[in-house]
């Protein structure tokens, strides 16, 4: 007789169901939208979606790490605006594009570090610490730009957001270029890279294991010799840095730096993580889940757009999807 074996089986099954629930809904959405619109199921549109999803995915990956430790980061939308604006201003002031963007990343990391220190040293609740940062970063971004967009950044600034790898273009006989393969946009490539790297970190590295330990039981982690403060700080710095990256990529894509860019993006990021099975109570979450979650949101938006559904209805649908998935998560934890 082995009593614990039975709940164990159920657990594993339920975890699978959760994974499949997200992936399955992704497939269902794809099929449904493909039936309604021919334009939806095409390589071109797939790349468009992937490109649109990148912002949510970068931020969602950061959010996942923070949420795994039992925290929350509300400041990423504002940080991405500040980082993008700083990068653009640096380029405007004559810095080479890579240096300017590195500056943007550093600003993101710094904001993340301040978040982390507020949580670990000042013992502020993460919600409050990052809410403060959200206001401060947005305010600084608006102040230093006079709330004006920064344009005229040049082609090299646009490269990161608009360039792509393996783009095949043939000059047509009529003198117009003919795009045979639109290529893999750099932001999509970067998303894959970040996802794989953070996934490796979470699953294979000691630091990642400690992130889960802190979120699962902070006191047990501390008594096991885990540097709880350091681990928590890392999560916020990572989230801030990824917000900085998002800012650079987004502003590059638009070739304009908007201090009001990225409003409410933090909520998309958290939604992506939650749809992907990350538990807001900490200790549970995967990058693959979050990327799936980001795609669910992206495909919903894209598909509904193509179907001519108004932006308001889109909000309603996405809101309902979030409620549904979190409800499923609750059921999973109630057993």
């Amino acid at each position: 007789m082995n009593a614990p074996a039975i709940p164990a089986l159920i657990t594993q099954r339920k975890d699978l169901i959760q994974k499949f629930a997200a992936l399955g809904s992704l497939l269902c959405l794809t099929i449904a939208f493909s039936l309604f619109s021919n334009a939806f199921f095409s390589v071109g549109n797939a790349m468009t979606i992937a490109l649109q999803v990148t912002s949510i995915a970068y931020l969602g990956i950061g959010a996942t790490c923070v949420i795994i430790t039992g925290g929350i980061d509300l400041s990423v939308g504002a940080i991405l605006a500040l980082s993008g604006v700083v990068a653009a201003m640096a380029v405007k002031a004559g810095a080479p594009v890579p240096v300017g963007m590195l500056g943007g990343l550093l600003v993101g990391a710094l904001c993340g570090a301040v978040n982390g220190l507020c949580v670990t040293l000042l013992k502020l609740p993460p919600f409050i610490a990052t809410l403060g940062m959200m206001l401060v970063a947005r305010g600084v971004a608006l102040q230093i730009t006079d709330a004006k967009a920064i344009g005229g950044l040049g082609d090299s600034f646009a490269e990161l957001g608009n360039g792509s790898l393996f783009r095949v273009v043939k000059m047509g006989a009529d003198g117009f270029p003919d795009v045979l393969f639109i290529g893999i946009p750099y932001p999509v490539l970067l998303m894959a890279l970040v996802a794989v790297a953070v996934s490796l970190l979470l699953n294979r590295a000691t630091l990642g294991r400690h992130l889960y330990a802190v979120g699962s039981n902070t006191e047990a982690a501390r008594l096991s010799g885990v540097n709880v403060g350091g681990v928590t700080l890392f999560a916020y710095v990572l989230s801030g840095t990824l917000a900085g990256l998002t800012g650079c990529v987004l502003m590059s894509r638009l070739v304009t730096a908007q201090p009001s860019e990225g409003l409410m993006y933090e909520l998309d990021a958290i939604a992506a993580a939650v749809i992907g099975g990350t538990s807001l109570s900490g200790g549970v979450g995967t990058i693959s889940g979050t990327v799936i979650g980001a795609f669910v949101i992206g495909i919903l938006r894209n598909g509904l757009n193509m179907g001519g559904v108004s932006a308001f209805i889109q909000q309603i649908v996405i809101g309902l999807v979030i409620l549904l998935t979190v409800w499923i998560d609750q059921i999973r934890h109630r057993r």
Partner: protein
Amino acid sequence: MPSAPPLIVHDATAKSPQAHGDAPSVVGQGATAEGAPLLTLAGLTKRFPGVLALDGVGFDLRRGEVHAVCGENGAGKSTLMKILSGLYQPDEGVILHKGQQRRFATPLEAQAAGIAMIHQELNLVPHLSVAENIYLAREPRKGWFVDRERLRTDAQRCLDRLGVAISPAATVSSLSVAQQQMVEIAKALSLEAEVLIMDEPTSSLTESETQQLFRVIHELRAAGVGIIYISHRLDEMVGIVDRVTVLRDGRHIFTGDFANTTIDEIVVHMVGRSLEDKFPPRCSTPTEDVLLSVEGLRRDGVFGPVSFTLRRGEILGFAGLMGAGRTEVARAVFGADRHDAGTVSLGGEVLRIHSPIDAIRQGIAYVSEDRKAQGLAVKMPVAHNITMTNMRAVSGRFGFIRFDQETQVAQQYIDRLDIRTPSTHQVARLLSGGNQQKVVISKWLFRESKVIFFDEPTRGIDVGAKYAIYQLMDELASKGIGIVMISSELPAILGLTDRVAVFHEGKLTATLETRRTSQEEIMHYASGRTSTAV
């Protein structure tokens, strides 16, 4: 602890005009005018997986009586009280309430029958006023709104009945613990409670606050309320308790008039001779080598100064009552809590320990008391919990975890400690208590420490798992590891340790050779009676 017991005249009627004339106040007399006792418990049995928490316990509570229930930790007091207050259902046995058989499915049902419990951790809402707390969820209404005037006057009447000077408008968080307790009692009275269960009511009260509580208890008794009084402080019971019941290992051992029983007798009943605890023979003998030396360790207001030594291969017991400071001392040595003064040296070298990270690096481990809160990452797999303290040992190049090695390590401990789990990747939460404890212990074995503190290592786990853990401790000691075992189970202390350090209210009152001591002697030092003829 004050040695002089509170001397209170039994006649409290002069002070309590509301006392009913029919309230019997004669110690140890029979049932009430109505015949049946307030409560009669018979054959109460409660089983938990692997543990028989209560085994046929029965006694009765009369009107206007203060009935003490004593027993060591784990004797079954809490389980019994939880059954009475409707939190648990007994597996067997009956509760007769005024002669009628009752079953309380929920605390609300018990409350409706007039049974109220004052918990050790008070259940008040700190940000609400006294009056709002007393009438929480049954506020007097005026239409849609709370009738604030009546709320205040009703609450005032309750407080007046107790004769305490607390304003009904005061916010609960601004009150002292003693005052909050009075509010709890007032709340119970407002529910027309006839049976009041008090769990360690004096544990956080000062001497004068205790006196005030006793005055209130006297008045309640005079008013015919039956009080079940749970306490570790036997000395304190003189002059307040009418009868005493002793539980041990879930069984009813003794009930008698307090006046005809000496405290020593009660202690003997409490410790008794446990038949269920078996201990493996000690294979090892401690060396003379001092391994760990703690000197003058102190944390203001919590414990100390405390000094003790631990030899290589020795098992040192920390005995004492709950709250005596044993855990606090261990946690301070381990760096989990700060200390204000004192030194810790290991192998003659003074250590600077500011956090568990420092302690672990030096080879000190602490198996925590509350495994769910402090020991286990419950959402993580067994394997991840086991390797948590020593990730480097299962990591390869670039700090990447080697899963094959990790699984192998986990499997090794699962086999060695006989951890019942379907796989190394089972989520720790789904294991039974004993197996969870073995996972926590594995975690520290994998770290290969020189000194291990075991804080209540066998609490809440079954006899078989207990034996395995004792055996393991002996095995570790034979390898030269120094072990400190904090335990409230005296048989375990006597059966396993080489020496016993006895704590009382933050101070080390005695260090005894286990071979030359007895449960009675330990209990005497643990209750703070430094000079005793045993």
